[in-house]
Every structure is written in C-alpha cells, then in structure tokens.
C-alpha cells in the first residue's frame, strides 16, 4: 500500500499510575482509510484515541502523527452547561468563519442550532454540533469516539450518511470507535479489536474468523435477521 501513513504507533503503552490501560500497540492508519476500533468497555479504545491526539502521553513506545489537521468528536464532553455560549460562538472560537460554520452545520443536520445555547442542546444535537466542529478545519484525520451515543434512530441514520459522504467525497481518514458490529461491517475498511493489547486487525470479512475476535465478541454475535415478504 503506497498511501500516506497518517498515524504510526510503535509498541505504545499507556499507564495511569501503576495500571496499564494499553500495552504494546502497533498500528498504522493510512490516508482515506476508515478504521473501526472495537472492544468491550474499559478495553482502552478511548485511551488509544487520546494517545493519538496527544491528550495522553505514552508511557512506552512512540506515537507519530503526520495528519496536518485532526477533527475529534468525543464520546462525552465535560463542560459547564451554564456557560451562556451559543453554538455559533463556540464554533467561531474554534476558528470557523460564518460561511464555513453554516455549511458544516448543514452537512451534519444542525443548521437550525446556530443560535441555541450549547448548554441547552440534547445529546443528539450536541453530537451534530461536535461533528460540525470537528469538520471545520477540513481534517485529514477524523477521530469519532462512539459518535452515535445519545442519538436517536433517525439521527443515527443521518449521522451515518454524513460519515459515508465524508468517506466518498473527501480525502479524510476516519477512526471510528463503536459498539455496533453491524455498523462496523458496513462502513469500515479495516477493523481493529483491542482489549488492552491489539487482539486482531484486518478487513471486516476476514476478521470474523479471527481467534482474537471470537474470544472478544463470540458471545455477542447474534445472527442478523431480516424478514422476507
């Protein structure tokens, strides 16, 4: 593969005090690649994203990021909901011009929210705003940490459409943390499954028989049923 390497992790470990959350992670993310990161709660998925972002410093190994612009949608955003700041003002603080803010909010289905206070947004509305924020700089790499948390079914469908459009129309690589294995199979070029260490990685179709994958998700794989008329 000759595509540019945007992220390269060599033997990365992250510890908090004496507790190791990640150990020996080797990983490359290439441009225009959609990578799904799966694992059970507490497996270290969010920690891995934050190590790539530079929020957590690795205790071992090295993280190299070649992407010039990175967009990030956190799973949960801790902020003071009583801050009287509107969506438009928040996106301006992250460097957005009025026209860019409008177009990114339109893309994520949040154009009606521009004058609303950020503290008054529902979880689904907040996710749309955060995705618009992540897209402001036209990122080369987009990190989405369970972006569908708190989004209703209709919202989830449009959210996925946005991801699909980004994948099709823009040269953006995406790392998507998800619990939804069906979603992963539909959108990802490659799947990484972690549980403190890297258990398996490969294309979605190949990974289903991987022993690491089965060890992690074997009990959770329920056959997908659909009705015929």
């Amino acid at each position, binding site marked *: 593969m000759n595509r540019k390497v945007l992220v390269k992790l060599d033997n990365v470990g992250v510890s908090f005090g004496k507790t190791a959350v990640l150990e020996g992670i080797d990983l490359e993310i290439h441009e225009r690649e959609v990578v799904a990161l799966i694992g059970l709660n507490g497996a270290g998925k969010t920690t891995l994203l934050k190590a790539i972002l530079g929020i957590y410093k690795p205790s071992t190994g090295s993280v190299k990021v070649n992407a010039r612009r990175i*967009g*990030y949608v956190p799973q949960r*955003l801790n902020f*003071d909901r*009583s*801050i*009287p700041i509107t969506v438009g*003002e928040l996106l301006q*603080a*992250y460097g957005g011009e009025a026209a860019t803010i409008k177009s990114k909010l339109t893309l994520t289905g949040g154009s009606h929210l521009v004058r609303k206070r950020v503290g008054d947004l529902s979880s689904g509305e907040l996710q749309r705003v955060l995705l618009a924020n992540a897209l402001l700089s036209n990122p080369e790499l987009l990190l989405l940490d369970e972006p569908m948390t708190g989004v209703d079914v209709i919202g989830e469908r449009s959210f996925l459409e946005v991801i699909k459009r980004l994948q099709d129309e823009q040269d953006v690589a995406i790392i998507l943390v998800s619990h939804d294995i069906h979603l992963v199979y539909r959108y990802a070029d490659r799947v990484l499954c972690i549980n403190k260490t890297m258990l398996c990685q490969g294309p979605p179709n190949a990974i289903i028989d991987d022993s690491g994958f089965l060890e992690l998700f074997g009990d959770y794989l329920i056959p997908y049923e659909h009705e015929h008329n």
Partner: protein
Amino acid sequence: MNTSIIDVIVEAFSYPFFVRALSIGGLISLAGAVLGIYVVLRKESLIGHTISDVSFLGIAIGLALGLNMNATTITIAVAAAIIIVALQNTGRFSHDSVLAFTAEISLAIAIVIISRLEGYRVDLLQYLFGDILGISRYDVIVATALMPFILLTLFVTRKKVLQVTFNEELSISAGTNIFFYNALFTVLVAVTIAIGIKIVGVILMAAFLVIPANIAKTVARSFKEMVLLSAGTALLATLLGLMLSYVLDAPSGAMIVMSLGSMLFLAIIVKGVLGLVSRISST
C-alpha cells in the same frame, strides 16, 4: 440647605482625586470584569484572593530588600501564576487546591518577612480595601499603561482562551497549546491583580473578578452578551459606589462592592421573575 443630586455630582467631579478614582477604578474594574468572565467559567474564583496574597508576599519582599514595590509585586505575581498553571497541569492536584495552598503559603511567608522588619506595621485596612481616593500620579501611569495592554492581549487571544476554558481536550485536538494559553491567561490575571490591589485592595479586586461576571452569567443569553453585561455592570458599580461613598462619606471600596452585590441580587430576582413568567405563559 437643599442640594440637588446634580449639584452633588458636579461637585464630586470638580475634585481631581474623584476623577482619578473614577477613571483608574473604572479601568481596573473593566479589566477585572472582562478577565473575570473566564475566571468564573474556569471555576477559579479563588484566584483573586490567591494572587492578592502572592502580591502581598511581593510587597513584603520589596520592603525587606528595599526594591521597587510595584516591580517586585508584579514579578512575584507573574512567577506564581506560572507555578500555579504548571502545578495544575501535572493533574496531581485539583485546580482550586493549587489556588488555595499557594495563597496560604504565600501569606505565611509574607507575614514572617514583615514580622522581621523593624518599625514597619502593616495597614490591614489598606491591604483589604486599598485607597482608591488616594491614587498617586505614579499609580495612574502604571494602570493606564498596563490595563489597555492586558485588555488588548486578551482580545487578540480571546478565541483560544475561550477554547481552553470550554474544554481542554477539544482544544488539544484542534492543535491549541493549552499550557501556553492557560499560563498567558493566568499571567494577565496576576498582573491585573498585582496592580489593582495597591489601588483598590484585595476585597474589591476579588469582587471585580467574580461579581460582574456572575451578574452577566445570570441573565446573558450568549457569550457576547455576557462580556458586555459584565463590563457594563463593573463600570456602573464603580461610578455608583464612588458617588455613594462621596455623598454618604463611607469607605469607597466597600461601597463599590455593595453596589455590585445589589446588582447581583437584582439580577437573580429578575431572572427568577422572567423564568416564572415564561413558565406561566407556556402552561
């Protein structure tokens, strides 16, 4: 004798000390109120007292070594600001704990230094409330030179400072150097307080940093409204407090704080009434 309010105002403005107090007090209140917005949103309201105590240490060191007090105060305050942000950045201590123990340690060292100085007695009332009506020409020069510089620096960096105030992780992902902007902001607050406490005292300086921003936060619907309301209430309270101080012959710093307190009370009542009206009209 029947003297109208206008006569009293005209009389007050005829005294140079009153005009100096109003202009320099107004400038300090404006800087305090605008910086205070971020102080309150960062949940660091304690910083006013912390830097005031650190500045007191600067005064003590200046006295002990026979150095220029303004220079030592500002130097010590800036150094403390950087140490505070560095300690907060380690993640070992909560932000308010760092502010609290820095204040206590600084005050303790300052008291020990001053207790060793022969023939010097600290005027506690001056330390607490300053002497806004006794502003010297030197204070005027320092405040008029530095306050606009502080406000201009904050204006230029306002978007980044707002980013790190709102959420540090999102700021890092946007490529913002959060240590730099946290340190820069804390240094701006430290310099403002170091200059301000000599003129308006610890209590009024801390009040300028916390009360106008909370008045604004209570009623504002956007960040822009919060900035304008915070600055406006600080200036209005300074004018009102000085006028009341002149008319009632009461301590000026305390009258300004009382004016701010009344406005905060009013803002809470207005917000409560508006909320009640909106609930009734929606049912």
